[in-house]
């Protein structure tokens, strides 16, 4: 096992791709017969089987082997995939995924026991064919080199000395008949095989017992013939020169006659065949060339040095893509972030000591760092299909569970997002999709009653718009039921029955996102069937994204997620309040204005200011920074349509910084998205305007 340890990561990565392909094509197959999908499934399980066997993950191999057997039958047309079999195969693919998780975390796939699934698959196979149907053979089945025509056979037999050979294949050989075929093929290239025992059909049918007797007419000589027949897993080759035609037994003669007939048939077939029949001489010439190379005396010498050079050039040209462990990319990203921090520090030192040359040098470093950063950002981009491809399965499962019919369409899966954003997007998206099927789409009879098609439609699309990625999820279901939301909000004590009277659709949507509204209050519930839309909202906001909902009762809903393609490095404005510094993301800032205390008004417990005919709520950071009496500047921030302003003592300037999330020890802190290290080594919080406004 240990010798394969180095391949574990690669095995998991590639097996996950194959698993995904398997699930995708199983779902395709559910929609109707699809030969391509069947081929793809066969290929995927075959590859999974081979790879897991190579790694020694026997449980996984066993499961994949049984699935492969099922698909051999399906592929040959002997059986079709029924809905029950489809479910069983999907359950198997779930188990494979579970095994891959286990393997990824260092296990050996034994945590998943495939006994039940393998048993069920085997039962299915028995039902459909008794025994496993043999792989279908192509009608094309003649040795290359075919068999010579009648006249050349006779002349060859007349001219050449004849030999009787006995070839024994090793007992441990797993495909004895194939070995025998190989030896026979090699000998056929050197002369005319006059008789074979057991006959070729026995080799074809797999009834070969391990010993092959051949009579061959050849002028190649004993040693060459012996070498040709010798090979891997060939235990012994005996060769004896025959005395002449008299030495040939009558039954051998009969063999020759039947051979002649089959040779004629073969020659007729050969005319239609796509491959070349090689003249004897050519083979020998080629072999001669090979034999000149000293055995085991270093690499085969190429024809000339020029050739060598060109082939090494070819080799470098070949490598266009390479697979890198994501942790290494994360590490490089961290280093780039450190570079950004230290660049700020250098800049401060240069400014402090007024060193002009250093300023120039930093300018150069600046350019490289920026370029490196944007390059790295591009490398980390992954197409959304990475998570989109798993969703059809989710839709199918939820729809089946709820007894609904849903057509799910994905569009724009090639749109790219940074890996870190992608990681955070998976759960909220999963949740929204489940919600759409579970709560959005109505049951078929309800749909028919309301004049809709029996099948509901859900569409997931993604596109890049300026600096954002927009993901849209639309359904043609019932829409959000304002009455229901109102009743629940009253029940939960979130609003008074009086206030509920004037409840608009927009307000209903707002309520859905309120913490405490939903039945789910734990983040872990997001992957369950809870309806924690507030958790979805928080997760999206943690990615610096926003979520918007439109809904039309009876027509359906539309969820729009607006996401930054990347989130690691952001532009912030550094402000100072009560000698403490904070970063405010530039993207949230609308304007910076003078703070005139005379214009402030107290409204209830809150404070507001009239700025350019607009009443803005004042958000004091007293709790974070302590009350300051020197606030002279107002930073106006906006989140969606809502604006408010933060009074600060002074603005220090704009800076590109790396925002590091708060450690899990601290937990989610409202108003702070993370911290950053400034050039002088100071650690300052970066405000999360979205959760403050």
């Amino acid at each position, binding site marked *: 096992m240990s010798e*394969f340890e180095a*391949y574990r990561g*690669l*095995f998991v990565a*590639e*097996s996950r791709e*194959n698993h995904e392909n398997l699930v995708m094509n199983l779902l395709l197959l559910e929609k109707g017969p699809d030969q391509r999908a069947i081929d*793809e499934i*066969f*290929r995927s399980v*075959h*590859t999974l*089987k*081979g*790879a897991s*066997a*190579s*790694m*020694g993950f026997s449980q996984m191999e066993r499961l994949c082997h049984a699935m492969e*057997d099922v698909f051999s039958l399906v592929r040959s047309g002997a059986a079709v995939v029924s809905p029950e079999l489809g479910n069983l195969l999907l359950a198997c693919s779930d188990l494979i995924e579970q095994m891959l998780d286990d393997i990824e975390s260092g296990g050996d796939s034994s945590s998943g026991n495939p006994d039940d699934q393998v048993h069920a698959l085997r039962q299915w196979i028995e039902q459909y064919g008794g025994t496993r149907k043999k*792989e*279908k053979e*192509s009608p*094309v*089945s*003649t*040795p*290359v080199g075919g068999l010579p025509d009648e006249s050349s056979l006779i002349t060859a037999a007349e001219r050449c000395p004849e030999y009787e050979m006995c070839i024994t294949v090793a007992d441990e050989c*797993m*495909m004895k*008949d*194939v070995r025998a*075929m*190989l030896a026979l*093929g090699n000998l056929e290239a050197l002369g005319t095989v006059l008789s074979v025992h057991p006959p070729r059909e026995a*080799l*074809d049918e*797999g009834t070969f017992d391990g010993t092959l007797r051949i009579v061959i007419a050849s002028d190649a000589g004993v040693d060459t013939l012996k070498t*040709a027949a010798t*090979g*891997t897993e060939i235990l012994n080759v005996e060769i004896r020169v025959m005395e002449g035609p008299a030495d040939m037994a009558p039954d051998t003669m009969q063999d020759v006659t039947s051979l002649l007939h089959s040779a004629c048939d073969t020659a007729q077939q050969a005319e239609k065949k*796509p*491959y*070349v029949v*090689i003249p004897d001489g*050519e*083979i020998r010439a*080629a072999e001669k060339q*090979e*034999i000149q190379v000293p*055995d*085991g005396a*270093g*690499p*085969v010498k190429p024809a000339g040095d020029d050739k060598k050079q060109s*082939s090494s050039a*070819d*080799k470098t040209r*070949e490598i266009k893509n390479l*697979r890198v462990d994501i942790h290494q990319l994360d590490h490089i990203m961290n280093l780039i972030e450190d570079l950004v921090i230290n660049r700020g520090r250098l800049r401060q030192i240069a400014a402090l000591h007024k060193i002009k040359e250093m300023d120039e040098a930093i300018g150069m470093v600046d350019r490289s760092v920026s370029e490196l950063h944007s390059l790295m950002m591009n490398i980390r981009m992954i197409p959304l299909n990475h998570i989109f491809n798993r969703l059809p399965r989710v839709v199918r499962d939820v729809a089946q569970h709820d007894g609904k019919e849903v057509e799910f369409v994905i569009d724009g899966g090639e749109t790219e997002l940074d890996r870190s954003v992608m990681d955070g997007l998976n759960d909220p998206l999963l949740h929204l999709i489940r919600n759409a099927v579970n709560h959005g789409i109505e049951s078929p009879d309800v749909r028919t009653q309301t004049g809709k098609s029996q099948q509901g439609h859900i569409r997931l699309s993604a596109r890049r718009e300026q600096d954002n990625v927009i993901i849209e999820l639309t359904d043609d279901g019932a829409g959000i039921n304002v009455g229901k939301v109102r009743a629940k909000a009253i029940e939960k004590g979130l609003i008074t029955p009086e206030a509920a009277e004037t409840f608009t659709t927009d307000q209903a949507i707002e309520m859905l996102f309120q913490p405490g509204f939903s039945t789910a209050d734990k983040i872990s519930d997001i992957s369950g069937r809870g309806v924690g839309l507030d958790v979805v909202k928080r997760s999206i906001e943690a990615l610096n994204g926003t979520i918007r909902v439109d809904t039309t009762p009876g027509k359906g809903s539309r969820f729009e997620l607006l996401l930054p393609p990347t989130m690691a490095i952001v532009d912030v404005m550094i402000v100072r309040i009560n000698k403490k510094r904070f970063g405010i993301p530039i993207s949230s800032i609308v304007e910076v204005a003078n703070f005139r205390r005379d214009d402030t008004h107290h409204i209830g417990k809150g404070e507001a200011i009239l700025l350019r005919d607009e009443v803005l709520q004042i958000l004091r950071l007293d709790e974070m920074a302590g009350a300051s009496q020197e606030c002279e500047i107002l930073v106006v921030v906006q989140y969606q349509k809502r604006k408010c302003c933060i009074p600060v003592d002074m603005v220090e300037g704009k800076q590109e910084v790396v925002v590091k999330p708060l450690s899990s020890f601290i937990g989610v802190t409202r108003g702070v998205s993370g911290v950053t290290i400034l050039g002088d080594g100071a650690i300052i919080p970066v405000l999360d305007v979205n959760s403050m406004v």
Partner: protein
Amino acid sequence: MGKILIVDDTLFMRTLLKNILFSGGHTIAGEAGDGEDGVSKYKELKPDLVTMDIVMPKMNGIEALKAIKEFDPAAKVIMCTAVGQEQMVKLAIKTGAKGYIIKPFQAPKVLEEVKSVLTS
């Protein structure tokens, strides 16, 4: 020792095989991820030997073997197979494959077969 082209649709298998071949002192002429690519790489790189997977996308190993044999009748191709694929291997042998190795690969067996086919 020879210059070998590896044709397999999984990077995992290619890497495994590559390391086994390296350990036997062979050099890798190139790698291809499907039959079609395998054929064009064969024409481009003229390797001494090809290891050919059977079940692959685009063009399977048998079709690729046929195409390679058409281009170069003396091509030495070893099929990568698994237990249960006997009929496919037989078809490959009839089409001109010179040997076969069975997954899961065992380094000594792979190297023995490669050596045997290279010197045949």
